[in-house]
């Protein structure tokens, strides 16, 4: 009996060792050339359009998602060789250029370059030191989103986020842009150039709001989940994306643009310094600028395209109009994000809000 048990036990040990030894297999799966690593916002590497790209180009796409424009620099600062391609909003682009985290882009290799709206092509923060550092590929406005079954009258002001009636049902994005919104509500003239005094006021206003806030969310998925599980009734959102997703889940939600105006932004492709996959990166950029990419992203996220020539070939006229593709002046009405010159004070102020009791 004893020896049988002993044998079984030895067998068990050996089997365990082998099972675990099999774990050595992934060494063969190591990241290599042709494995394109994206650091992007959600929706920019959706299988609906990535599958085709992978088939056409032979490059494999793998995505890591950011929850804020402030996520790019730290991830690149931690060490090179991890990411190839980034999707950065214009206001955060120059920081990366100055820090030496990105490569300049040879626009002669971007056939669609001249079809891109000039307004985006010429943004100062992507044209630094006489070189182009980013390819704009999408843009949009960030309105607020609310549950129509819980909030029956459509709000019209950012002030609704301070309404005690919705205590514990308010969601806020974990990002310094919340400072801009609060500033706008307080009637501060230039939210990107606040004085210390103004910044203090904004900070106080946001701390005052804390007891009402359910959660500072940091990804689209998180806020979608907060809406879906009834934790949040109203929140700042990234226009289109959350609405689309929640619509699919049959959650009654609606976007509204406050009378103080909405944040506007545009996102750009940038190539990380020392990327070992330069070829694949360029292929992906060009794919994203083509009709397939432009409409692919637009369909998934609800954002607008920067290449109206390509967009026209794949959008229905109604969609084309709804996404303001024929009305680039609309961009002028948005409060386009800018990099605050005193970014450190801004970051610190936002962290102080989060740290406050």
């Amino acid at each position: 009996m004893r020896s049988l048990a002993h044998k079984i036990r030895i067998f068990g040990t050996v089997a365990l060792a082998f099972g675990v030894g099999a774990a050595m297999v992934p060494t063969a799966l190591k990241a290599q050339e042709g494995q394109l690593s994206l650091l992007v916002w959600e929706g920019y590497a959706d299988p609906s359009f990535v599958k085709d790209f992978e088939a056409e180009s032979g490059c494999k796409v793998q995505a890591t998602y950011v929850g804020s424009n402030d996520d790019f620099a730290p991830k690149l600062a931690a060490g090179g060789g991890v990411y190839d391609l980034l999707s950065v909003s214009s206001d955060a682009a120059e920081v990366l250029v100055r820090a030496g985290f990105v490569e300049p882009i040879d626009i002669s290799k971007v056939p669609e370059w001249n079809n891109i709206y000039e307004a985006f092509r010429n943004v100062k923060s992507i044209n630094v030191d006489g070189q182009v550092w980013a390819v704009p590929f999408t843009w949009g406005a960030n309105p607020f989103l609310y549950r129509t079954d819980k909030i029956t009258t459509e709000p019209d002001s950012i002030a609704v986020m301070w309404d005690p009636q919705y205590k514990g049902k308010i969601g806020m994005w974990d990002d310094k842009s919340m400072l801009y919104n609060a500033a706008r509500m307080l009637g501060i003239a230039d939210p990107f150039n606040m004085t210390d005094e103004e910044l203090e006021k904004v900070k106080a206003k946001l701390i005052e709001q804390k007891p009402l806030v359910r959660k500072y969310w940091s990804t689209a998925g998180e806020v979608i989940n907060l809406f879906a599980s009834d934790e949040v009734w109203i929140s700042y959102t990234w226009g289109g994306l959350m609405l689309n997703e929640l619509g699919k889940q049959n959650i009654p939600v609606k976007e509204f643009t406050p009378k103080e105006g909405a944040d506007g932004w545009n996102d750009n492709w940038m190539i990380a310094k020392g990327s070992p996959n330069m070829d694949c990166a360029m292929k992906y950029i060009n794919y994203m600028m083509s009709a397939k990419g432009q409409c692919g992203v637009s369909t998934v996220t609800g954002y607008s395209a920067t290449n109206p020539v390509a967009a026209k070939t794949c959008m229905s006229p109604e969609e084309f109009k709804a996404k303001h593709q024929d009305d680039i002046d609309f961009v002028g009405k948005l409060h386009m994000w800018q990099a605050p010159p005193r970014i450190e004070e801004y970051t610190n102020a936002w962290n102080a809000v989060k740290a406050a009791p």
Partner: protein
Amino acid sequence: MTGRGRRNLFAAALVSVPLAWTIVFMFAPYAIMFTYSFYTKKFPMFVPDFQFGNYLMLFQDIQYRQVFVRTFKIASIVSLVALLLAYPVAYCLVFKVHSRKIRMAIYMAIIVPLWASYLLRAYTWKTILGSQGVLNSFLVWSGILAEPTPLFLYNQFSMVITLVHIFVPFMFMPIFTALEKIPRSLLEASKDLGVGRLGTFLKVTLPLSVPGIVAGITFTFCLSFGDFIAPFLVGGPDGFMIANIVQSQFGTALNWPLGSAISIAILAIVLLVITLSDRLERAGRLDLG
């Protein structure tokens, strides 16, 4: 080579491997972190410097003080609750469960969850405590509540529950060991001397289990003090803990020098707690002769 020489060589080899590892992967990283904590943040990263601004900031800027105090508070509550849960269980197991097999089984049952994924346990509390969660839907279904309450999730309460659930085995194990080591004859002697049950517990059992309590509190306190996942998953707007600050300094704030200074502060606190608990344990031992 002589036997003596070979033995000395062997000893040197024995020492050098782990020593080298410890120097490269522990001492050096801590030293680098310590150095960084005196640097100055300068776009995009930081520049070498020697100044105490980062440390001064910890004391001067109210936001860091507030978070430190909050982290202390939550870690203390977690330790206390874990103690109140773990002690009676350990006591019951050691003194009231008389079958060795059952005792062994319950002991295993309590420590086995340690092996179940930390992340998943934290996440499950989120699904239990949420507005549509198991608890709320049960309370509404049974008519106790008219509508779901948001009070369970995204606040310090949910963080404490989650952290206690995760760390209670760390409290239980050393207390169990300490109680197990108490000679039964001592308790019998106490009863023999006419000391009542409560008296025996207060005068004999409790003091003798102090080393276990101290070890348990040390573990629970230090681990929950440095947690950044529970605040992230189940914490609310007021749930920011010190590890979240560190994370954000190395992340969005991109202020490594300040992050390093806070890390050094955490390291110092942990070392302080360990030293204190060592002292306490030793003192406890001396008391008993």
